[in-house]
């Protein structure tokens, strides 16, 4: 493949700043840059000619011209005070990153003994054995140019480690803030390890706090060991000048349970790469998403569920409410390995298009090589039910309110998937606000109290 001028500029940018990038990173993280360099020189930033990126051309956004977020870019802990005081709405352990960097001052002292949650840069040095075992084991540089780019530039992010048998009841809430006066490119790297019989609930809240343009390339690897459980939530509420590629690579062992939920409530361009490998018998996962977009927003959920062994179950549900000229895509790959008998794999993607201009591309991709498999998939694209609409109005409910009730009714199935009751209630409220058009206007996000921003004017 021919690299674009921007790819070459990114390579140069890395070469020029390598010392700075590697200065505080763990040896394993630096060692991985070699392979990343080679992979990136082959892959570059994928164009829409790459099949997996067919519906989302990101090449135009990932230019070397953006300042790289190597440090906090002027965000002082003083500046962060303004939201720290707002964060107590959810009873959680709370961590912050600013422009991909961990910020001290988080309330994680009370974590159960042995459980770690904090800076990837620091904890990766403290736990070389975990890093050796897991870093880059799921998110492979040679498979995606974005993973290669991230692995090249990665310095910090979040590291969560729940040792064997430990149960963390309260959610670990990670507030990822993008801010600063400059347009920025951020390559955040996260690692979550949940060992045998351990449990964790992790919430990533992605926010923008200033009107700069942000180009984000995050990679999260999550390991869920035997009989362990991970509840993972991603809540995206960013301004329309944000372009975010989020890769989430999960690996599950025997009898493990993974719930992963993606709520895209506001953004510019969002691409989620969700990979989940069911690698031990009787592992089960529930992966769901809700995207509520309008204006020119674009959301592309790309998922790959890999049934590598027999007797596993996967459930996938993605729903979208799309207004104005918003566009979306969903790809649901399900792979069932030749001997993965007695697999149950369910998938559906339902979309509500509120205007004629909204466009959705949805494609299931099933590759089933075992014969004893229960697999279903379905995709729908539709409008609000006019009979239901009339029924509600005939009881005195205004058209606007009926719209909101019906949009919410459409979305609620995904909200129901949330396992943490307090979080469910807050996301429910947030989604309702979104439907009322109050979210981008409103002053704060009910989940983590983030201040909102206005709109970035498009170029």
């Amino acid at each position: 493949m021919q690299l674009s001028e921007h790819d070459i500029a990114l390579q140069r940018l890395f070469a020029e700043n390598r010392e700075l990038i590697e200065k505080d990173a763990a040896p394993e993280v630096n060692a991985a840059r070699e392979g990343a360099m080679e992979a990136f020189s082959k892959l570059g930033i994928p164009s829409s000619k790459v099949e997996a990126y067919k519906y989302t051309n990101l090449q135009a956004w990932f230019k070397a011209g953006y300042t790289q977020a190597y440090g906090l870019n002027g965000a002082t802990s003083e500046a962060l005070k303004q939201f720290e005081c707002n964060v107590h709405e959810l009873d959680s352990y709370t961590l912050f990153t600013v422009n991909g960097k961990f910020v001290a001052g988080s309330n994680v002292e009370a974590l159960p003994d042995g459980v770690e949650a904090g800076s990837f840069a620091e904890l990766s040095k403290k736990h070389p054995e975990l890093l050796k075992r897991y870093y880059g084991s799921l998110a492979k540089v040679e498979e995606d140019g974005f993973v290669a780019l991230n692995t090249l530039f990665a310095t910090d992010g979040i590291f969560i480690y729940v040792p064997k048998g430990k149960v963390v009841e309260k959610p670990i809430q990670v507030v990822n803030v993008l801010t600063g006066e400059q347009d920025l490119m951020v390559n955040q790297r996260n690692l979550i390890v949940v060992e045998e019989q351990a449990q964790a609930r992790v919430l990533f809240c992605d926010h923008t706090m200033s009107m700069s343009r942000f180009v984000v390339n995050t990679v999260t690897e999550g390991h869920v060991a035997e009989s362990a459980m991970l509840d993972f939530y991603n809540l995206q509420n960013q301004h329309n000048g944000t372009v975010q590629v989020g890769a989430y690579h999960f690996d599950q062992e025997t009898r493990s349970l993974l719930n992963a939920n993606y709520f895209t409530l506001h953004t510019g361009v969002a691409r989620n790469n969700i990979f989940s490998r069911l690698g031990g018998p009787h592992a089960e996962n529930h992966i769901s998403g809700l995207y509520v977009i309008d204006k020119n927003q674009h959301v592309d959920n790309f998922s790959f569920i890999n049934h590598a062994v027999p007797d596993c179950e996967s459930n996938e549900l993605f729903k979208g409410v799309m207004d104005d000229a918003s566009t979306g895509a969903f790809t649901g790959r399900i792979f069932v390995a030749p001997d993965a008998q007695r697999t149950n794999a369910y998938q559906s993607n339902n979309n509500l298009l509120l205007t004629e201009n909204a466009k959705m591309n949805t494609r299931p991709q099933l590759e089933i090589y075992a014969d004893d498999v229960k697999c279903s998939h379905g995709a729908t694209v539709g409008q609000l039910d006019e009979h239901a609409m009339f029924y509600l109005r005939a009881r005195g409910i205004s058209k606007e309110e009926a719209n909101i009730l019906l949009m919410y009714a459409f979305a609620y199935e995904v909200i129901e998937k949330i396992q943490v009751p307090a979080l469910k209630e807050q996301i429910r409220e947030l989604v309702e606000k979104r439907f009322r058009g109050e979210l981008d206007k409103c002053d704060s996000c009910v989940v983590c109290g983030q201040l909102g921003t206005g709109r970035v004017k498009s170029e």
Partner: protein
Amino acid sequence: MLKIRNLHAKIEGKEILRGIDLDVKAGEIHAIMGPNGSGKSTLASVLAGNEAFEVVEGSVEFNGKDLLDLSPEDRAREGFFLSFQYPVEIPGVSMTNFMRTALNEQKKYRGEAPLSASDFLKLMRDRKQLVDIDSDLTNRSVNEGFSGGEKKKNEIFQMAMLDPKLAILDETDSGLDIDALRIVANGVNKLRRPDNATILITHYQRLLDHIVPDFVHVLYKGKIVKSAGKELAYELEKNGYDWIKKEME
């Protein structure tokens, strides 16, 4: 209360209502009968404001207002209620939320304060008793998975909650078992006041034993072709519609 004059309505180019005249005064109960497909539900839908139907001629006055000029929600807020022949299932919208929203929007329209949470629940409880509706039903999504009879009971429950001035019950008796029919009829009778009125669309005399109408009308091919007292219903029960159809030819 309701004054319909020469009402014509079409759907998909086909004229279904072909000159309806009807007067309903406060305190009255009217029954509309007529063969399948004659336009009874169409009349109800047009009055409720269903935009699928196009009114091509005529006028409808409701408590001095031009009903046809109002949006469906404003008709409801003015006190018009339709018990649907085929109530719609709305998964994901809870009965409680639905009723609270409807009631409070109606109150807002009339310039009244919204009900407090506890007053609302009290009203729900009270009205549930009136139509003897299972508590479990109001905890579910609107009509979702309700049996045919449960849906009809639910319509009357909504009517009891919203306390309309004029209610049209479109075949609310169909699908109800004998006890449910009595309960629903009792409910309607209890809600009856000198200042409200009811139009019953029905195929059966049975309902009219419980709710005694002041007038019975026969709708045939989009027109009211006969109007009389309650004895007309007995006659229809006994002899069917053939004699009316003959009279028309």
